[in-house]
C-alpha cells in the first residue's frame, strides 16, 4: 500500500495543479452535468451506513442519499445518477480531474484539505468522532484507564494518528496494532489479540452490533477527535457549490419543518406555513439563485426524504440501519440540542 499511496499522492498533486486550473475555468459544472444527463457522484469503497451495495447491486446509505438528492434537485429524477466508487487514495484526484462532479463520502473536513487540495467542503451531513470499544468484563469504563493497553486500529488513517496523540498527551503508553481491513481488526479484537479497538464511533457502533454477542462489549464515553464528514466539490464554481450546499440544507430544513416524503404532497397543496411554501416552491423564487426548477426541493424530499428519514433508514434503527442512536448526539437537530442547523430558506 505504501507504493500506491506514494503514487496516488504524486498523481493527486499533479492532477490538482494541472486539471484544477483547467477544469475550473471551463463551463459551469451544472451545465456539464445537465448536458451529460446524469450526475457523477463519488463515494468510497463500501462502508457500513454511508454507502453499501445490497444483494441486488443497488447502492444505499446516508451519503448515497445525498447523491440522489442532488440528482433529484437537478433532474427531478434521483436515478439520473452514476455512483462512482473510488479508493481513498484517489478520491481527491478524481474530483480534481473532473471525473466526479461531487464527493459524498466519509471525508473528514480538515483545514489542510479544504485550503490546499483545490476543493471546498460543504455542510457536514454527519458529525463523527473517534472512540474505543472494550470488552465489558475488562472493567474499563474510561479510556484513561487503558494504560499500556494494546489497541487495534486501521493503518493509514487519521485514527492511527489520533490514537498516538491521545496516548502521548495522557501518558498512557498504548501500543497500536495496525490493520488494513476493519474485518480483520475486529476479528483480532474478538479473538483476544487486543484489549480494545478504536475507530469512528459511528462505524464502531455498526460493527459492534454485528459481533456474535454485542452485549459483551461497550463503547467508552470518550470521543478523542472531531470528524465532521462533509460532501465536497471542486474549488471555484460557486453556483455548483451553492446547489450541493442547499440540497443538504433543504433536507435538514425539511426535517425541522416536519416535511417528510410521505406528507410532502399534502404540504405542498395545503400548508399555510410560509416557510414550507417557500421551500417547496409554491411561493417566492428561491430556485432562481440556484439555476434549478422551482420544485427542486419538493423533488428532493419526495424522492429521497428529509435528513431524519435518511438517518433513521441507514444510520438508525431502520431495516438497513446500523443502529446508532441519534438522540443527544451531534447529529440531532439543533432544536434537540444537536448540530444539524440549516440557515433560513427565504
Amino acid at each position, binding site marked *: 500500500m505504501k507504493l500506491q499511496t506514494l503514487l496516488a499522492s504524486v498523481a493527486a498533486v*499533479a492532477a490538482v495543479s494541472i486539471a484544477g486550473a483547467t477544469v475550473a475555468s471551463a463551463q459551469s459544472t451544472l451545465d456539464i452535468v445537465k448536458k451529460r444527463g446524469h450526475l457523477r457522484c463519488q463515494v468510497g*469503497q463500501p462502508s457500513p451506513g454511508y454507502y453499501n451495495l445490497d444483494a441486488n*447491486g443497488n447502492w444505499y446509505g446516508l451519503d448515497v442519499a445525498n447523491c440522489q438528492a442532488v440528482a433529484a434537485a437537478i433532474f427531478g429524477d434521483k436515478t439520473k445518477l452514476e455512483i462512482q466508487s473510488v479508493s481513498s487514495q484517489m478520491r481527491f484526484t478524481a474530483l480534481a480531474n473532473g471525473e466526479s462532479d461531487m464527493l459524498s463520502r466519509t471525508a473528514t473536513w480538515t483545514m489542510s484539505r479544504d485550503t490546499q487540495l483545490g476543493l471546498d467542503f460543504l455542510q457536514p451531513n454527519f458529525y463523527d468522532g473517534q472512540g474505543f470499544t472494550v470488552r465489558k468484563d475488562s472493567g474499563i469504563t474510561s479510556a484513561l484507564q487503558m494504560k499500556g493497553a494494546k489497541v487495534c486500529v486501521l493503518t493509514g488513517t487519521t485514527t492511527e494518528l489520533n490514537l498516538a496523540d491521545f496516548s502521548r498527551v495522557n501518558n498512557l503508553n498504548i501500543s497500536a496494532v495496525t490493520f488494513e481491513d476493519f474485518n480483520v481488526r475486529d476479528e483480532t479484537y474478538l479473538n483476544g489479540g487486543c484489549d480494545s479497538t478504536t475507530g469512528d464511533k459511528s462505524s464502531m457502533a455498526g460493527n459492534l452490533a454485528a459481533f456474535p454477542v454485542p452485549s459483551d462489549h461497550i463503547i467508552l464515553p470518550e470521543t478523542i477527535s472531531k470528524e465532521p464528514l462533509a460532501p465536497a466539490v471542486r474549488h471555484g464554481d460557486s453556483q455548483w457549490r451553492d446547489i450541493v450546499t442547499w440540497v443538504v440544507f433543504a433536507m435538514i430544513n425539511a426535517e425541522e419543518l416536519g416535511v417528510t416524503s410521505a406528507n410532502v404532497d399534502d404540504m405542498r397543496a395545503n400548508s399555510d406555513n410560509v416557510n414550507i411554501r417557500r421551500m417547496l416552491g409554491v411561493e417566492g423564487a428561491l430556485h432562481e439563485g440556484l439555476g434549478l426548477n422551482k420544485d427542486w426541493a419538493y423533488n428532493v424530499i419526495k424522492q429521497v426524504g428529509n435528513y431524519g428519514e435518511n438517518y433513521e433508514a441507514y444510520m438508525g434503527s431502520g431495516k438497513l440501519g446500523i443502529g446508532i442512536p441519534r438522540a443527544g448526539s451531534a447529529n440531532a437537530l439543533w432544536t434537540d440540542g444537536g448540530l444539524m442547523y440549516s440557515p433560513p430558506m427565504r
Partner: protein
Amino acid sequence: MAIVKAEKTPARAAPISESSLIGWMRMHLFSSTFNSILTVISLYIIYITVFGVWKWGVTDAVWVAGNRRECFNISINGACWAGVITWLDNIFYGRYPREDLWRVNLGGLLLFIWMAPLWLPRVKAKVFIGLTTVFLYPFLAGYLFAGGEKGIFMQVMITAAIVCLLGNTTHSIIGLFTGRSLPEFLIRLLGKNAASEKSQRNILLGILVLSFAVVYIWQMGWSVEVVPWTKWGGLFLTLVISGVGIASALPGGIILALGRRSKLPVVRVLSTAFIELFRSVPLITVLFMATTMFPLFMPEGFVLNKLVQVIIAVCLFNACYMAETVRAGLQAIPKGQFEGAHTIGLGYVGTMSLVVMPQALKHMIPNIVGSFIGLLKDTTLVSIIGLFDILGMLRSISRDTPWLGLHKEPLIFGAALFFLICFGMSKYSRHLEVKLSTGNKH
C-alpha cells in the same frame, strides 16, 4: 534325466510384509520409533484441521437466513453461507441489471459453442476456428454485453460473427459425423463435385454472400438495451478483463518477441525498450498510471472509459511478459531448424510460421498457461482502483448492513472458485502438452 526344469517356476506372492496394507504402513509410516511419533502427530494435526473445518463449514453452517444476526441465532460457531448465497448474483455478474443476465449467460454459451470444436476429433481447420474466436467473437459478445445503438461497423462485424458462428457449428457437426469440411459437404450436397475448381469456388462464395445478406437483414431487426460498463462486475468482469488480456497477449507477445530478435535495429531497440519498461514496473503501478495520469493528457472534459483504460493497461503489460515467454521458446529451437528452412527456400515469414513457431509454441505451453493463470489472478488488482470485480464484490458483502462483518465465508468461496478455474486451466495445459508432444518426449 534333466537337471533343468521344463516348466517355469510359478511366481510366489509377495511377502505379506510387502504387499498388505499393514506391511505398507509398517514400511512407510512406522519404520522407526521417530517416524512412528511423527506419523501419529501428523495424523492428529490432519484430524483436528479437517474435522474443525468440516464442523465449521458444513455441519454447524447456516445455509438459509435473512441476515447475519439470524445466522448467529441459529449457530454461533458455524459458517454463515446464507450471505454468500444471497449475494451470488453480485458475485457472478456484479451490478448487471438482473433482467438482462441472460445476455451474459448467452455470451458465455456462445463462446463455449464457438470453441467446442477445438476439442472435438475429426474436425478440420481448427486454426481458422481459433482465429475467428479471437477476432470475431469479441464483437458479438461485446455488443451483447454493452448493448445500445449498432453503428455500421458493428453491424458488419456482428453479422460476420454470426455467419462465422453458424458456419463453424455446422462445419463441426458435419466434421464429427463424416470427417469432411463444410465446403466439401456443400459441394457434394449440391452435386457439383465434378464441376471445375473455379465454379465450385464461385458457388461457395455465393452461399457465403447470401447467408451474410440474410443475417445482416435479420440483425437489423433487433437490438439490446445499453448497459453501462459501470454496472459490469463480479466474476463476469474478471473474465472479460482477463479474457481480453489473454486473447491479445499471445499475438502481441509473438510480435514483440520477433521484434526483439529482429535484425532491424530500430525495431529491435523499440521492442526491447517497450518490453523492459513494462516488465520492470508492477501491474498496480501501470493500472494507477492508466487511470490517473492518462485522463490528464486528454482534452478537457473528455473522460475515457475506465474499463477501457484498465483493459489496455492489462493487455500491454501481459504482452510484454508473453514476449519473454515466446522468446524463451524461440531460443530453444536449434539453429539447424532455421538453416534447414532457408535451404528449402522459405523466407522469414515462412520460416517462422511453418517451421519455428509450431515447434517453439509447443515448448512454451506450460509457461503460457502459467502466465494466463497469473493474469487471471492479477486481474483482481482492479478492485483497488474501484472496479467491482469478483474480489471487490466478495469484500463488499461484509459492508452490506444485513451481513455486516461477514468476511471469511466470501473469501473462502472466492478462493474455491479461483482454484476451480485455475486448476481447470492447468489440467487443460497438461492435456495439450501430451497431445502435442510428438518426438521429444522425455
